[in-house]
């Protein structure tokens, strides 16, 4: 087991390197120049050249890339072009905002989705099934920024239950922090529940048709037990894959939610950095997200055999 994990992590190294290299060169291909963004509409060619030199952007690209890699290998992610902050601590700081939101939301979505999805599949083609699928689809068709703003207006502005802005770190005031992440978690959970319900339903439908379910039923095993012992573990496996994907996706990509709810998270950091062409931050975020992906997917693959006994992790 430990050997497998270690091997998987070693295998992930090329992925990380590939991700780092592609983001580095992709961002340099994209037009736009941090020096220009700093100097704005008054940029004289001399001032741009001076600033580029000061930022180390005047050197050949491969040299810049290798220098960056060398420093990263030593644990130094460089400093933000925008505000001079060290990128390493910055990433951890922002991740501490994004992670609880995403974990809570995906957890809630899964708790909501699996029972409903199984129920819909069990009662396939019934009214309950059609209703579940309809609701799931409606959830799917709502953009998070839209749903988020509606919730913000209702609960923040009209009812005044939660502050509209005002993130505080958990370490400082857990109660207020809970308030601040409540709406984003609800919004995300609702939006993500849509897809998870459909996945859970689909895989349950699959499993219900398998011979051993018919067997179990024929042997007179109570329906509840069939669902719990035979259907759930098998139906949950594909849903788990999707949960892993959703989780990884969200950890890097909830910029929209973080904008609506004014959360200083990783997604917002990435978007701001992209717009500011803050290369060290973009590269740092990218590497960080890639690492999280590797870990989340490793976790999913390790969990897979638990639910689907036909597959071994190795």
């Amino acid at each position, binding site marked *: 087991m430990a050997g497998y994990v270690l091997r998987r992590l070693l*295998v*992930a190294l090329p*992925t990380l390197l*590939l*991700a780092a290299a*592609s*983001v580095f060169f*992709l*961002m340099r*291909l*994209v*037009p*736009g120049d941090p020096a220009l963004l700093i100097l704005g509409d008054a940029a004289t060619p001399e001032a741009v050249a001076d600033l580029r030199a000061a930022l180390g952007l005047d050197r050949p690209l491969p040299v810049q890339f290798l220098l960056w890699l060398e420093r990263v290998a030593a644990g130094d992610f460089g400093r933000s072009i925008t505000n001079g902050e060290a990128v390493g601590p910055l990433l951890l700081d922002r991740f501490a905002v994004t992670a609880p939101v995403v974990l809570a939301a995906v957890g809630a979505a899964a708790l909501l989705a699996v029972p409903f999805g199984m129920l819909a599949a069990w009662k396939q*083609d019934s009214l309950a099934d*059609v209703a579940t*699928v*309809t609701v*799931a*689809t*409606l959830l*799917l*068709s*709502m*953009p998070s*920024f*839209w749903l988020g*703003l*509606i919730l913000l*207006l209702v609960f923040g502005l009209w009812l005044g239950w939660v502050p509209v802005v005002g993130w505080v770190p958990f370490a400082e005031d857990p109660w207020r922090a809970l308030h601040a992440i409540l709406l984003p978690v609800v919004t995300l959970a609702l939006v993500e529940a849509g*897809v998870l319900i*459909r*996945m859970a339903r*689909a895989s349950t*439908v*699959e499993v219900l*048709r398998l011979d051993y379910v018919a067997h179990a039923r024929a042997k007179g095993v109570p329906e509840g037990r069939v669902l719990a012992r035979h259907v759930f573990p098998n139906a949950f*496996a*594909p849903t788990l*894959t999707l949960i892993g*994907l959703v989780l990884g*996706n969200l950890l*890097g*990509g909830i*910029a*929209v939610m973080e*904008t609506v709810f004014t959360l200083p998270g990783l*997604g917002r950091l*990435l978007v701001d950095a*992209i*717009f500011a062409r803050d290369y060290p931050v973009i590269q740092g975020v*990218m590497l960080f*997200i*890639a690492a999280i*992906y*590797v870990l989340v*997917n490793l976790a999913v693959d390790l969990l*897979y055999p638990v639910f*689907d006994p*036909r*597959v071994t992790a190795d």
Partner: protein
Amino acid sequence: MRLRPNLVIGGTLLGFVLAVAAAALVWTPHDPVRTNLRRRLRPPSAEYWLGTDEFGRDVLSRLMTGAVTSVTVAAATVVVALLLGLAIGLAGGYLRGWVDRVLGALNDTLLAFPGILLALGLLAVMGPSRWGIVLALGLAYAPTVARVVRGTVLSIREREFVEASRALGNSEAYTLLRHVVPHTVAPVTVLATSLFGWVILSESALNFLGLGVPPPAATWGNMLASARPFMLEAPMLSIAPGAMIAACLLGANLLGDALRDILDPRDGA
């Protein structure tokens, strides 16, 4: 085969959306990009059935032409994502070994690439166009398809009938096509119809962040994104594209479920 309710409802909804798109190709009540500053943000009326937007453009006409753009972009993206994802997933899941490892590394790299970064890069290289969006979102979603396919294949290839097919001396390719691929149809159909929705919404989110299909061409996504500031003053601006997206998604998903049931290889058995 009995007539399934989801087939009927799904087909009707999607048929409606396609009919709207088809109609827009030949006729719209007004010019969808014609602005008129003297009639901005009007509520629905006899002349403008769904009112006008912040530039005084007719919402109904934009909704109709938006159907063409949105459906084309979403469908093209799904096709790109499916082709890429199926190829990677099947190869990786079935062949395993070093092929799986290399493809897995590529796939993970792509997965780890945030969609917005991909969109920005490709749009910058290709110029702002809808095909840039298609490629960017297609690339962004392909690894998801690949992972789901690979997961399914991993679990199928251990089954007795796959072993049996091999034991009977059938070639790997035959076994793959005859016994493995059909089992991926169900999860992939579900995923594809979900993808259809995600793409429309992602396009909207890209618009919200300042990228997306270049205006003034209407898509439901950019209509929804630009309606957000007027959610209170002109609710119809958000409701109209929102309802179309919902109808389209509901239709695609119900139809997808029905199709899956019909296509399922074990149905006859």
